[in-house]
């Protein structure tokens, strides 16, 4: 156990809570920590196809438990880890909201639609519009499901090179093409002259250093910054190209899908996790946002916790795929690893999938774009953070990978619609009548 003493003390209460359930829990002690794969779909936008990020579960890395006799489970996660996730999620949302509010490009409705939302929303008829948004959602979700299954199949049949190449291609597209677009729009908004040579230098540097940091080795802070930036870029694309009502329905549907895929025994994400565990291997260059570096000693029978969040992009759209991070905490592995790691500093943090970042930002961004005033945006922001907090709490209690989307998105949606329709008119009429409460 590599928790510090102080941490251990603060968790005593929770440990006690868990310990009372200990007869059933021991098997969980040796459970694997996993982050479930997160998959994105590819969407097609013009000739460039795009990917839809699927939410990934929040993963909690568990320290291995000491030798069998001691069943105390020290929960490694507390306020510190929650804050470590709050900050990047907040940053991502801030970037998205700031862009939405200042660069009008991302709120202009374009006549182009993604191929994944083929039904046009007719603003004239409510029923028709609702129907079309549900149909769009069905199309989108089925594409996601198909992509997830393809990923699982590919992984099962060890087509690593293919997945790897796909991953690299998609991060290339995201880092170069979307940032190029973004920069162009920002320059137009602020009426700045920019020449091609300088622009090429900027994009080239940004992209290449990003590829290096994300797929190879680089400073952690820089990697985190890049992940935040690409999540924000992806979220902006979604906000622009998803039709109004479809976006909300899709958000809801994605959360439900996330719930199913991660928790059901036959869910594709869960199967991916289990396959990775069986093979005892790390998956792919990680595109999970990790709040701390994992430094593991490799041993024959304990798997390497490569945080595996794969981002697969198809010809341009980001397809974030969260690979499985499996820590083999199986009985022998766990104990041995514990004894061998006594002198090794483990600085595991909490991991959150990039799709979660993206969808949180989509929700808040849409609230900022269409929600009227800042009340709504702030309400959604707070709702998402509360949801994240609750998810982390559940994670600490259940010690398995959990979907991070459902709770936050539910809260976010509830808060958005209620604030927009109830709180805002209320505040407006209060202000109009100069009545302060």
């Amino acid at each position: 156990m590599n928790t510090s003493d102080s941490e251990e003390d603060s968790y005593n209460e929770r440990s006690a809570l868990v310990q009372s359930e200990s007869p059933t829990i021991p098997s969980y002690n040796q459970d694997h920590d996993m982050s479930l794969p997160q998959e994105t779909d590819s969407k097609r936008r013009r000739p460039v196809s795009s990917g839809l990020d699927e939410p990934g579960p929040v993963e909690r890395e568990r320290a291995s438990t000491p030798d069998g006799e001691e069943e105390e489970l020290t929960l490694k996660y507390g306020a510190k880890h929650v804050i470590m996730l709050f900050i990047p999620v907040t940053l991502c949302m801030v970037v998205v909201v700031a862009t939405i509010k200042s660069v009008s490009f991302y709120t202009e409705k374009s006549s182009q639609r993604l191929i994944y939302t083929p039904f046009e929303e007719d603003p004239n008829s409510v029923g028709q519009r609702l129907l079309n948004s549900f149909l769009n959602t069905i199309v989108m979700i089925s594409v996601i499901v198909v992509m997830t299954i393809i990923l699982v199949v590919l992984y099962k049949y060890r087509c690593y090179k293919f997945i790897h190449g796909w991953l690299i291609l998609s991060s290339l597209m995201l880092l170069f093409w979307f940032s190029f677009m973004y920069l162009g729009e920002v320059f137009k908004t602020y009426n700045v002259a920019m020449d091609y040579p300088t622009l090429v230098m900027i994009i080239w540097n940004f992209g290449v250093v990003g590829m290096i940091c994300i797929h190879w080795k680089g400073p952690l802070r820089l990697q985190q910054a890049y992940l935040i930036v690409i999540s924000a870029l992806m979220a902006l694309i979604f906000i622009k190209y998803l039709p109004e009502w479809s976006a909300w329905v899709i958000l809801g549907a994605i959360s439900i899908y996330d719930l199913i895929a991660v928790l059901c025994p036959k869910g594709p994400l869960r199967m991916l996790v289990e396959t990775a565990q069986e093979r005892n291997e790390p998956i792919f260059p990680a595109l999970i946002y990790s709040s701390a570096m994992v430094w593991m000693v490799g041993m024959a029978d304990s798997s390497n916790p490569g945080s595996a969040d794969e981002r697969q992009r198809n010809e341009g759209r980001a397809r974030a795929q969260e690979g499985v991070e499996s820590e083999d905490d199986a009985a022998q592995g766990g104990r041995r690893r514990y004894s061998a790691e006594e002198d090794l500093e483990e600085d595991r943090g909490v991991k959150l999938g990039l799709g979660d970042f993206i969808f949180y930002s989509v929700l808040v961004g849409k609230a900022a774009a269409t929600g009227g005033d800042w009340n709504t945006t702030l309400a959604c922001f707070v709702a998402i953070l509360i949801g994240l907090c609750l998810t982390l709490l559940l994670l600490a209690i259940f010690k398995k990978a959990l979907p991070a989307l459902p709770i936050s998105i539910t809260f976010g949606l509830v808060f958005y619609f209620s604030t927009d329709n109830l709180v805002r008119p209320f505040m407006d009429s209060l202000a109009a009548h100069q009545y302060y409460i």
Partner: protein
Amino acid sequence: MDLSSVFFIGNIMNLERIPNEEKLSLCRRYYLGGFAFLPFLWLVNVLWFFREAFLKPTYTEQLQIKSYVKKSALGLIVWVAVLTTWITIFQHFRAQWGEVGDYLSFTIPLGTA
């Protein structure tokens, strides 16, 4: 089960934990990579290895790391100078250059000559 090899998981946060040869190799690769028109890479190199090179007690590879950091810093300064000069020239003379200016421009501001 003894401690076998040590794995890096993707990205490195803490330079403390990797052996010196790896540090040197990383520094060198970042330095060499910067020659591909990547002053940003040199900047990252300088910032990341600064403490390693200058603020740590000496170890065998430190001398080489120092030299790489210094060379990266030099390259960075050169690039910054070049880019600043070019940008200043372009912004100043863009309008006067007429067609060439437009050809070079990615975005042209509205409302000015």
